[in-house]
């Protein structure tokens, strides 16, 4: 029975971001009930304010690191970095969604509330220091995600996507839980530090068993980060879900999942690294290959981006396999760069898709360079970043990852990863080709309103999301210092 039965103010302060977000979510739900429809325009603004406040809270909370609530959660540089990341992603998501929701005539309140709550879940995940917290955070973010994926409930694609996500997600979570149970049984604790201690202690349980248990947990996490062979859900879900949601899912929850994956495996399971490093090695390779090669022949851009996001998960796993301080820093930086880039791409897709997401075929981007040069240019930046061309964040991300890998002498993994990125170039280039080098054949005989619809300029908010992502991508590519130093300082020792 610890002395301070009642939490101190500093502990609340350390949990402030989650509190702020929750309050914002609750407020919106409340207003949803009371406000008239024409007044509901403010939700977007409200959400942004809430997220902004949470962002501030997260940063300031990062000011004095430490545990809180009986070390249920720990606020360190690592946690802060990811908190900021997921909240930032949330901001982008909101900006990108406003126009979309209007276009689809979906009611806004719940949507923003869900976004907020899922961010609560993610930020709990990344701050969690206790498998229970991990589990609950994971569930919060997941359940919110399930709902978001099926948000347009009259859209068959949404339903299917939601159902698949939900069923498989819960299925995988069950494995995760089973693993947790075993770990608990083996180490007698669910606290990450204590797990580490007991694993490192001389009387440690047989490594075979802990390794198996860790493997079971890896199943759960691997599912969340869409690592092969658990990536199967991702393409279907991202393709079916609303475009902005797909963007959000492909970065936010994934980043959080990676955060907790790294934390659990590098800290708690550090002592048995020899057990899981080879697994991650194999998984990373498989993930890269599956993602890149399957993406080669996609005709639906959302699905293609889904595969590409799988591939990128593979790259991050390379850094995880490195299992070093540099590695965790690389993971952080890469996720930051990837988040901006990938979400930006999805934002552009959101815009091009138009009502009912009819225009998500790669051919629908034909001649985009003439119709909407700005959007095309931005998408070009994102794609180049995804390819990993210098002066973009994606390049530096890859660079640091492979640097980490080589630091840990993962030479072959590095070589194969580099070759993979060469393969990946092919399908990204296809989009560039279509945008710049093909005349819009389909629009040629299409009706005038189709043409008009095709060249509707993006709304202010969406444009902001796109440009912000683009600027971020370039900044991370040209002056990566500020993020990278943060990542290095926050890296798990």
């Amino acid at each position, binding site marked *: 029975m610890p002395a301070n039965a009642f*939490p101190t103010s500093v502990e609340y302060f350390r949990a402030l971001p989650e509190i702020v977000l*929750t309050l914002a*979510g609750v407020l919106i739900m409340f207003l949803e009930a009371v406000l008239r429809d024409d007044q509901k325009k403010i939700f977007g603004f409200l959400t942004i304010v809430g997220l902004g406040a949470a962002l501030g809270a997260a940063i300031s909370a990062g000011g004095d690191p430490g545990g809180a609530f009986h070390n249920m959660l720990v606020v360190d540089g690592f946690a802060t970095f990811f908190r900021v990341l997921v909240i930032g992603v949330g901001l982008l998501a909101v900006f990108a969604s406003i126009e979309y929701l209007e276009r689809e005539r979906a009611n806004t309140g719940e949507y923003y509330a869900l976004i907020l709550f899922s961010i609560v879940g993610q930020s709990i995940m990344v701050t969690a220091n206790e498998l229970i917290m991990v589990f*609950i955070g994971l569930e919060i973010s997941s*359940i919110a995600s399930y709902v978001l994926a099926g948000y347009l*409930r009259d859209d068959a694609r949404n339903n299917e996507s939601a159902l698949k996500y939900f069923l498989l997600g819960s299925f995988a979570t069950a494995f995760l839980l089973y693993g947790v149970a075993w770990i608990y049984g083996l180490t007698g604790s669910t606290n990450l530090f204590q797990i580490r201690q007991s694993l490192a202690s001389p009387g440690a349980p047989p490594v075979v068993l802990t390794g198996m248990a860790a493997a079971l947990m890896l199943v759960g996490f691997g599912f969340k980060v869409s690592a092969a062979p658990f990536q199967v859900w991702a393409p279907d879900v991202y393709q079916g879900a609303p475009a902005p949601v797909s963007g959000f899912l492909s970065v936010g929850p994934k980043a959080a999942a990676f955060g907790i994956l790294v934390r659990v495996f590098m800290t708690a399971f550090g002592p048995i690294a020899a057990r899981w490093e080879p697994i991650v090695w194999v998984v990373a390779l498989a993930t890269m290959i599956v993602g890149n090669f399957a993406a080669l022949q996609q005709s639906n851009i959302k699905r293609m981006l889904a595969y590409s996001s799988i591939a990128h998960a593979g790259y991050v796993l390379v850094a995880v396999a490195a299992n070093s301080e540099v590695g965790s820093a690389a993971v952080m930086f890469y996720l930051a760069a990837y988040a901006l880039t990938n979400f930006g791409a999805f934002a552009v897709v959101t815009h091009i898709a138009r009502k009912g997401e009819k225009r998500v075929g790669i051919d629908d981007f034909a001649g985009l360079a003439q119709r909407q040069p700005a959007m095309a240019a931005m998408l070009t930046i994102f794609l180049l970043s995804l390819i990993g061309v210098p002066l973009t964040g994606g390049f530096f991300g890859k660079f640091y990852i492979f640097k980490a890998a080589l630091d840990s002498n993962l030479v072959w993994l590095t070589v194969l990863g580099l070759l993979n990125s060469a393969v990946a170039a092919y399908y990204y280039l296809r989009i560039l080709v279509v945008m710049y080098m093909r005349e819009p054949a389909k629009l040629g005989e299409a009706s005038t309103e189709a043409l008009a619809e095709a060249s509707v300029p993006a709304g202010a908010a969406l444009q902001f999301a796109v440009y912000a992502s683009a600027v971020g991508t370039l900044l991370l590519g040209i002056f990566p210092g500020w993020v990278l130093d943060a990542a290095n300082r926050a890296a798990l020792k």
Partner: protein
Amino acid sequence: MDALLFMIFAAVAVVCGVNLVLQTHPISSALSLVGVMAALAALYLLLGGEFIAAAQLVVYAGAIMVLFIFVIMLLNAGTERKIHKASWAKYAGVPLLVAFLGLVALLVQRIAPPSENVVFGEFRKGTAQEIGRALFTTYLLPFEVTSVLILIAILGAIVLARKEID
């Protein structure tokens, strides 16, 4: 005595579980699941988990399963139709399961000292007040956070099912 009880309830649980898998009509599956849960509740009791046993009955059997059955009724889901969709799960399923079970069994063999027996009443931490104390001190935060979880569940349910309800 304990052993006998264990065997009985374990048998019930397994039989119901198998039944769940074999039945083609959701209702019967649901009922067998209730059976499993009841049996498990008894086993919890054997393990000294008074509170959990109760919760098991109330929350699971009482609430969740009712919800399930309600939905099944609502959609008046009938027995599964035989549609021949060749999914490799159908063929690879059994070997996979056997392999999985084998591995876990191995795990069990290695982990738990067969010597240690479960003696009813030996474990006294499972009482309501013990759990309550833990919940409101050590596990305060998770407990609070769960509220968000519930909230989001409600929200989600409303979002998705509103039309059907109002």
